[in-house]
């Protein structure tokens, strides 16, 4: 049963033409389809308008870059090239608009490029507040949500829309619950839910409507829990940090595991499971989204944490995941991930948690170096008690 699901999810995720999205558009011709860039957007606003929110986390290795490189110097990360390439090839034809969340300068500037390159779609920069006081940052974020809802549905939110927003919150709460269950399951039994399966289950959430996707994850979990007869390997357990935006190729994730490291916690597609507890399902749904962002989101490199120490949070995460080490895996030229790496490493050193680091690009296909690095790391933990 799971094989059928997984084949289908793999096809959905690896289709550079986004066939699953096109199919949905054919089935819902009048519904708004809205793309959103990493790492977090309140996609409930789109579902409430009867639409589909499509997470555009880059084109991966299957998108051949012909036009994209003409827009970016070699020292800019790969994600915006593949996104522009897909747009130029017409992959996003029929999308009503795009949301560009405030996570880095590259995505910020891409929002402006989009306005000029694709004037038939609206392009909206979403300023996620860095002030977490409900009366200041919360008030501002509410205004942002109203502005965004108005773009999505073409009119300011009314009572009917707010009612549907409540329903959308219930829908995404259920989806997050399923995804968290998946993550917990993998944390306990990484050998039973291989990394590629786990990854496709997560990534397909960017492309499918939650009403369809949640059921697939639930079916996968019940089938797995019923018993896949897989034996655990003598792998070490690691946390993967830095892959919240541009995604590593699935082959790279598999290489890490084959080299002896079970990835038992990660920040892959961070925004999907960023909320640490469910959104409030009753009362004002806009306030629920505001409260969710201000009070229920976890740590992220693009979020101001005030006096909270991100290093300490990572150490806690490592312990909570019963991990033995950390793999820092960031895309080349990713400022948020690479700039915070030294601080996190310092915290790990103090806590005597071993780590190693590498960079990748979404279209990379040579994994030999990373296999050796991950293999050595795994050996050092298993054989020499973390001595590198």
């Amino acid at each position, binding site marked *: 049963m799971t094989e059928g699901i997984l084949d289908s999810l793999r096809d959905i995720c690896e289709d550079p033409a986004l066939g699953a999205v096109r199919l949905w558009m054919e089935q819902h011709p009048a519904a708004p389809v809205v793309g959103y860039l990493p790492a977090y957007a309140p996609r409930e606003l789109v579902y409430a308008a009867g639409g589909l929110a499509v997470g555009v986390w880059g084109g991966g290795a299957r998108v051949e870059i012909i036009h994209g490189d*003409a*827009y*970016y*110097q070699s*020292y*800019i990360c790969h994600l*915006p090239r593949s996104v522009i390439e897909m747009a130029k090839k017409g992959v996003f034809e029929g999308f009503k608009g795009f949301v*560009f969340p*405030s*996570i*880095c*300068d*590259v995505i*910020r*500037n*891409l*929002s*402006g*490029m989009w*306005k*000029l*390159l694709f004037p038939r779609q609206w392009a*909206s*920069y979403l*300023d996620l*507040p*860095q*002030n977490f*006081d409900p*009366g*200041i*940052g919360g*008030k*501002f974020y509410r*205004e*942002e949500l109203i502005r965004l809802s108005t773009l999505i549905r073409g009119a300011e939110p009314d009572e009917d829309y707010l009612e549907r927003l409540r329903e959308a919150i219930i829908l995404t709460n259920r989806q997050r619950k399923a995804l968290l269950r998946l993550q917990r399951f993998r944390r306990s039994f990484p050998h039973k839910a291989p990394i590629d399966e786990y990854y496709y289950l997560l990534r397909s959430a960017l492309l499918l409507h939650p009403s369809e996707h949640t059921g697939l994850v639930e079916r996968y979990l019940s089938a797995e829990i019923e018993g896949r007869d897989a034996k655990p390997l003598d792998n070490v357990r690691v946390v993967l940090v830095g892959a919240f935006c541009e995604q590593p190729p699935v082959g790279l994730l598999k290489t890490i595991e084959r080299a002896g490291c079970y990835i038992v916690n990660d920040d892959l597609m961070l925004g999907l499971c960023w909320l640490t507890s469910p959104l409030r399902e009753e009362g004002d749904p806009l306030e629920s989204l505001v409260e969710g962002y201000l009070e229920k989101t976890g740590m992220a*490199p*693009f979020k*101001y944490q*005030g006096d909270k120490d*991100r290093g300490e949070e990572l150490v806690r995460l490592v312990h909570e995941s019963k991990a033995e080490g950390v793999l820092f895996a960031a895309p*080349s*030229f*990713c*400022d*948020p991930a*690479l*700039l*915070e*790496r*030294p*601080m996190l*490493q*310092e915290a790990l050193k103090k806590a005597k948690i071993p780590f190693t680091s590498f*960079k990748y690009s979404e279209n990379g296909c040579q994994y030999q170096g990373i296999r050796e690095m991950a293999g050595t790391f795994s050996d050092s933990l298993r054989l020499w008690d973390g001595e590198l």
Partner: protein
Amino acid sequence: MSEDQARTRSSKELRKQMFDDYFQQLCAAREEGKKVVYTFVPGNLTELMLSFDFIPVYPEINAIQSALRGESKAYINRAEIHGHSEDVCTYVKCDVGMMLSGNIGPSGKPLPPPDLLLLSYTGCFTFMKWFEHLKALYDCPMVMLHVPYQGDGVITEAMVSYVTGQLEEVVIPLMEKVAGKKYDPDRVRDLCSMAAKAEDLFVSCLEAARNVPSPIDGYFGGVFEIFPIFNAFRGTRAAVDYYEALLREIGLRIDQKLGSFTLEGNMGEEKYRLVVEGTPNWTHFWELWKMFYRRKAVVVASSYTRVGGLYDLGFRHDPESPLESFARYCMGCYTNLSLPQRVELLSRYIRDYRADGLIVHSVKSCNSFSAGQLFLLQEVEKKTGVPCGFIESDLVDPRYFSHAHIKNRLDAYFQMIDEQRKHG
């Protein structure tokens, strides 16, 4: 210094005096019980800091000075050994390396550590990570002022209210605590009033470049023009004196048709009038400037001289509503503009300053400027019809400066302008 005394001195003398006084004051800060605030140039709240008698320190300027003194390479190496990636902003690495090496300032004495880190989060995402690093190095409070981006090319009331809310509820209360004194609105008003005077004069200096020949270089020479207004002096009498002196000198240069000031005297006749987009390279600043003026190219306007505020578009600090004007100032800085606004502004400079073309200087380190610059170049070319050229290096990492590469690009670019002139 009296106004009469200031009037008899050149802008260069005044600048040197301001610079010396500032570093002397900074080095004596601890002994004299003065508090020091580290903050950033874009969206700086200088008037507010001065009203509390804080001495502002700008880490970008420390990095620039290290590069001009030839010390940035060693500092960057130090930071990379400390674990920083080769891919990230070299301002950050230079600054962190400088701290790790004793935080020695231009006077040869250590700079005082901060009493407060004021994270004015304007126009650059790296700022937050940069100050997180400093927070880890220094035991002092940090406060964030989040400045929304002009994604739609406008400043809305919601954006203004968000920034003023942070100033009233978060930034000012913490400043009061650190300074040990209350917020003084009258003093802030006076400082804003003085700032507006300097801003008027500054705009007159910048716009003098509309003359042919231009009496100033608005990019390389512009570094001297922006110095007080982007730095710790906005809101002071000294800044007004400086700009008055500069404007007098510019007036003489226009009358005598001296052209712009260069390292080797007056340029006189100019052959190419350019607009430049992007931050300068600081490790080879003088060398790069020579590559322009020795080809008789003068920069008449640049985006870099607008990173600390777009005064030529009309913004002035407003003594009647200082907090709102701080908010509008922060949101109006060049790097906080959307890409379509940047295209529009550069195209406007090309028209207003009668420029022959645009040169984009792209730096590896700065995504805020660099991401989208190739597209920006194409759009400006489309809008204005002038030839646009592209050169690349870095901010303060000398490893990324290639003289031959830039020279070839510039020569080809100037040939292109010549050919276009020949063929109408």
